[in-house]
């Protein structure tokens, strides 16, 4: 952005790099990532595709076919962006390797070959996946207590575990960049490791320079959710003039750790102190101790200031030494959910919804279905705010959509729930309609978050070349 160099800049003599955030989840929008690469004057672009549940889904894909288990989006993303990034000298870091980073790296190599990019280097970071060793680790006396519930009896779920991945830090990613990787493919590293690695590599920061590492963690956190700091999920949504024009963010980072959060002027949305603040308070738990594999960031000394249109300066990074334990997320099979919906019409929509609920609960009981939990929502009334919702006067309701969901150990029972809702079409009140096609039963993967000593998680880097 030209405006930065024109303005008197106390940091003008400092080295700086520009990092783009190209994805926040599996299924994120591709177009704003293309805009970033085209217009962002980037040095690096990071792609986070993994949420807590994702590894469990990917592990099951890999179990069916050992050549899968990476994020399928890796293919179209790489096909579209790799040639563009290569032409501009932009390095890519992605955790789309998922449950199979080695194969993810292989796929990137294939695409690079097809695009005729000889000499292109791919760094594959592996070792986060400890699925095969989890029983052994537990047998050696490592407790693996559930950090949410405190429960210690992991044997209860041991034979139902489908995934066990450790949130690893940026160390191997830094090593990959040092060895000249153009693309780094990882599995479950922390989201912000994708952004810490280029900073450490470019600025030569020591991995125990905790304030600098905290800068990396914090800046990574601000941009890693892409639209999270550019007006997505925002309280300020009314200020967005052209909702269809998205934007992904850029962090322009200086070697002292200070950063400017910005975006290409060719894109929509906006970046203000508020949109940056909205993401700084998002999912950080204790802001004095924002725990990551690489270090701990104390966010309570940060200062944010809008220095130009769509440019917010972030300074004041304070860090503490990295935790001794790493976070391990275990996913295990935990029954089935069956759900379905039907709409009921004015007049008396709310009363009709209650009739439907009574019908369903009664049918489930009469058929003596093995059900662990039932939930009925009146969409348009209380599905989001539950018991706290203020219910509009019944005469004002044009319609209510009734949704029932049950959890059960049986796929068959989950499937029956769909059929029972379908019966309301003909057995329900006048004006019951719009069942559409209910979703198939879905298997529940519950999560068992826990901690594991670092030394139990050796990681490795595999360098490949086209």
């Amino acid at each position, binding site marked *: 952005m030209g405006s930065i160099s024109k303005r008197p800049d106390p940091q003008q003599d400092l080295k700086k790099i520009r990092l783009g955030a190209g994805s926040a989840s599996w299924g994120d929008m591709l177009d704003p990532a293309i805009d970033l690469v085209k217009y962002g004057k980037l040095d690096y672009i990071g792609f986070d595709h993994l949420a807590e549940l994702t590894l469990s889904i990917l592990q099951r894909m890999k179990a069916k076919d050992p050549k899968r288990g990476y994020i399928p989006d890796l293919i179209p993303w790489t096909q579209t962006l790799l040639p563009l990034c290569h032409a501009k000298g932009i390095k890519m870091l992605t955790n789309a390797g998922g449950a199979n980073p080695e194969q993810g790296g292989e796929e990137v190599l294939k695409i690079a070959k097809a695009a005729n990019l000889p000499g292109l280097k791919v760094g594959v970071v592996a070792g986060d996946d400890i699925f095969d060793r989890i029983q052994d680790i537990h047998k050696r006396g490592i407790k693996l207590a559930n950090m949410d519930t405190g429960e210690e009896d992991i044997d209860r779920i041991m034979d139902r575990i489908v995934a066990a991945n450790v949130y690893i830090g940026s160390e191997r990613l830094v090593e990959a960049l040092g060895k000249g990787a153009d693309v780094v493919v990882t599995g479950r590293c922390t989201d912000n490791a994708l952004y810490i690695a280029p900073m450490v590599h470019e600025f030569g920061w020591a991995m125990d320079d905790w304030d600098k590492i905290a800068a990396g963690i914090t800046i990574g956190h601000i941009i890693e959710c892409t639209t999270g700091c550019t007006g997505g999920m925002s309280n300020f949504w009314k200020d967005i003039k052209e909702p269809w024009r998205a934007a992904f963010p850029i962090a322009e980072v200086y070697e002292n750790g200070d950063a400017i959060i910005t975006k290409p002027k060719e894109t929509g949305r906006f970046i203000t102190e508020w949109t940056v603040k909205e993401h700084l308070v998002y999912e950080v738990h204790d*802001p004095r101790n924002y725990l990551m594999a690489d270090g701990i960031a104390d*966010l309570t000394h940060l200062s944010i200031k809008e220095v130009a249109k769509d440019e917010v300066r972030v300074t004041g990074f304070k860090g503490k030494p990295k935790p001794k334990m790493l976070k391990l997320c275990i996913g295990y099979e935990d029954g089935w959910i069956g759900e379905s919906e039907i709409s009921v019409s004015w007049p008396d929509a709310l009363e009709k919804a209650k009739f439907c609920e009574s019908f369903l609960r009664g049918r489930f009981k009469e058929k003596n279905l093995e059900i662990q939990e039932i939930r009925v929502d009146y969409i348009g009334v209380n599905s989001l*705010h539950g018991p706290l919702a203020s219910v509009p006067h019944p005469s004002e309701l044009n319609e209510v959509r009734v949704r029932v969901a049950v959890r059960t150990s049986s796929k068959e029972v989950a499937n029956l729930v769909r059929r029972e809702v379908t019966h309301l079409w003909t057995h329900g009140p006048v004006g019951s309609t719009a069942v559409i096609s209910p979703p198939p039963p879905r298997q529940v993967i519950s999560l068992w978050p826990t901690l594991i000593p670092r030394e139990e998680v050796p990681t490795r880097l595999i360098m490949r070349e086209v």
Partner: protein
Amino acid sequence: MKKQIPLIDIAYARSGDKGDVSDIGVMAKDKKAYEILKKYLTAERVKEHFQGIVKGDVVRYEMDNLDSLEFVMFNALGGGATRTLAMDQTGKAFGCNLLRMILEVDE
């Protein structure tokens, strides 16, 4: 004398999740509002507000530098996004839900 202030008039909020834990970041619209939030928007008050939804403890953290409070609510998401029967699996609407609160403030 007590004055009633809708939280939505003086604050913004954004919520997210980690496992069965819901996080709500509450941002005061200005410094004066932040002082009101610090005094009246206590962890106990938030816990009481989410009665019937949040089953575990509620912990409050202060971010004076950003005029913001962070609420961490345990056992809040029906076992977590992957397990819950709720439609709002990640508690993304919890922030809006909190903003329904009316604060009773000393004049």
